[in-house]
């Protein structure tokens, strides 16, 4: 079953087109990375999915219309919006109390075990926490909700390397245990690509690329070409080329990986490099 289904999804702010007709299907049990430059429409798309913004076109999320059924939808969907902040006056314990009181799928013990790995104290107010600690608290709440769909917009902004690693490990653990569906937008592409099953590139409000990681592995090849063989390699019409140390790095699209083996070392391109190639 498709968890997210969009047809001709559009959103304009005055003369600015944030989403320019998006067609999209995300199946249950995927971890989808939404990747794009600033202003590409990532946050608008995610906000539409979680019912924070109105839109034109069709959108169903777990069978519901997010704009009119937000309070029902959020029982199954947990999310962090890009500019979301916890209320500054709130105590950590109050945030947990409120989530436990209102959200039927919130697991307080789980949130507390996340918080135990941090230096956050239950009696602290959010305004007393550092920016990173406030994000940790927010993530602890979101991750303790046993949601079917998790929507994360730049979830690890301002977090240190260790915590980011912990967070993505926890995300993967939950994913394998509960067959969650995750959609994740981030600029720290290199860090998340090992957890993704699918990649969506979004640019100027349109989805310009939509593949599974398996497809990318099968169809895209990055070849480290020795300068002597560059001319021969370029004849095979690479989709991108960039200089490396002592060799050129050429990106090819095609089924047959062996074809490129004679040119040099062949590997799977990173999601970020592929994005740059596709956007060009």
């Amino acid at each position, binding site marked *: 079953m498709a968890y997210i289904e969009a047809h001709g999804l559009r959103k304009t702010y005055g003369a600015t087109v944030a989403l320019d007709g998006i067609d999209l299907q995300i199946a249950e049990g995927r971890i989808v990375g939404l990747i794009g430059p600033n202003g590409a429409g990532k946050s608008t798309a995610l906000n539409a999915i*979680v*019912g*924070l*913004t*109105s839109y034109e076109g069709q959108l169903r999320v777990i069978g519901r219309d997010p704009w009119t059924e*937000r*309070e*029902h939808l*959020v*029982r199954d969907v*947990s*999310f*962090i*919006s890009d*500019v*979301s*902040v*916890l*209320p*500054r*006056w*709130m*105590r950590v314990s*109050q945030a947990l109390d*409120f*989530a436990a*009181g*209102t*959200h*039927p799928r919130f697991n307080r013990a789980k949130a507390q075990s996340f918080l135990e790995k941090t230096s956050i104290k239950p009696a602290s107010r959010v305004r007393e926490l550092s920016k990173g600690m406030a994000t940790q608290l*927010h993530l602890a709440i*979101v991750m303790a909700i046993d949601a079917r769909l998790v929507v994360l917009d730049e979830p690890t902004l301002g977090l240190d390397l260790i915590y980011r690693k912990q967070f993505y490990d926890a995300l993967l653990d939950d994913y394998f245990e509960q067959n969650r569906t995750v959609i994740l937008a981030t600029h720290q592409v290199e860090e998340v690509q090992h957890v993704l099953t699918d990649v969506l590139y979004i640019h100027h409000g349109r989805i310009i690329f939509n593949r599974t990681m398996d497809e990318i592995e099968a169809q895209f090849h990055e070849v480290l070409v020795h300068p002597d063989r560059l001319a021969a390699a370029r004849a095979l019409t690479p989709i991108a080329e960039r200089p490396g140390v002592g060799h050129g790095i050429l990106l090819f699209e095609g089924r047959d990986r062996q074809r490129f083996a004679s040119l040099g070392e062949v590997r799977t391109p990173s999601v970020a490099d592929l994005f740059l190639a596709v956007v060009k």
Partner: protein
Amino acid sequence: MSNLIWAIRRELWENRSIYVAPLAVAGIILAGFAVALRGWPARIQAASVLGSSELREAVQQPYVVAALMLMGIEILVAIVYSLDALYGERRDRSILFWKSMPVSDLNTVLAKASIPILVLPLVTFAVTMGTQGLMLVMGTAVLAARGMSVGELWGQLSLFELSRINLVHLVTFHGILWAPLYAWLLLVSAWATRAPFLWAVLPLVAVGIAERIAFDSARFALLLRNYFLGSPGAAGAGGMTMDMLAPHSLVHLLASPDIWLGLTAAAAMLFGAVRLRHVRGVI
């Protein structure tokens, strides 16, 4: 239902002025009363010579003043609260967190409306009772220390009756009758992207000025005045006045058609606030 209660609890966590402000005023009242008590036995003796109504007046006056001061702070807190209730959460972007929890816009707005309409009058009533109770204890102690009859004080002061009038007044006037005012402030608070106070006041002033220029009359201003403050005649909310000691009852108030018009307008404005909370995002 339980989500509504959590939404109200959130308001009490967030806006501690709901109970801190009345308690602070109660503290000031008690401090002032303690100072005034020094000259009080003499005043009572003087009043008792003049007659029983003067004596009653002298005994009751501080208790009435205490109740009025607490009502004053109640109105101030209610207005400040209502103007910020649906504006502040958009300005500090915490609305995005609130909307990630399964609490509907309707429950959120109802919780916020219940603060000025129900919670603040009841909190004020409780604080007033506590304050008057302490004043009674302090007065009794002073009289007893001077060797004066405490019976005089207790006989002239019906704290129970004062409290009953106070409760009815707070619930009917500050709660039910004034509900349209708070609904209006909440509506503006949900709509404005800046300066909610100005947006709340300026349209009313504009209507008044336009009427004055077009028809050279002041019916709109008079309508608001008669509704919210009552009028000396039979017009307004059942011809009642804001004098808290005037006899009035809930039944009397509910018999007036004005109150039903006012409550209908309040419901419509709150419904508008619910729609706006749905549509309007962060500022």
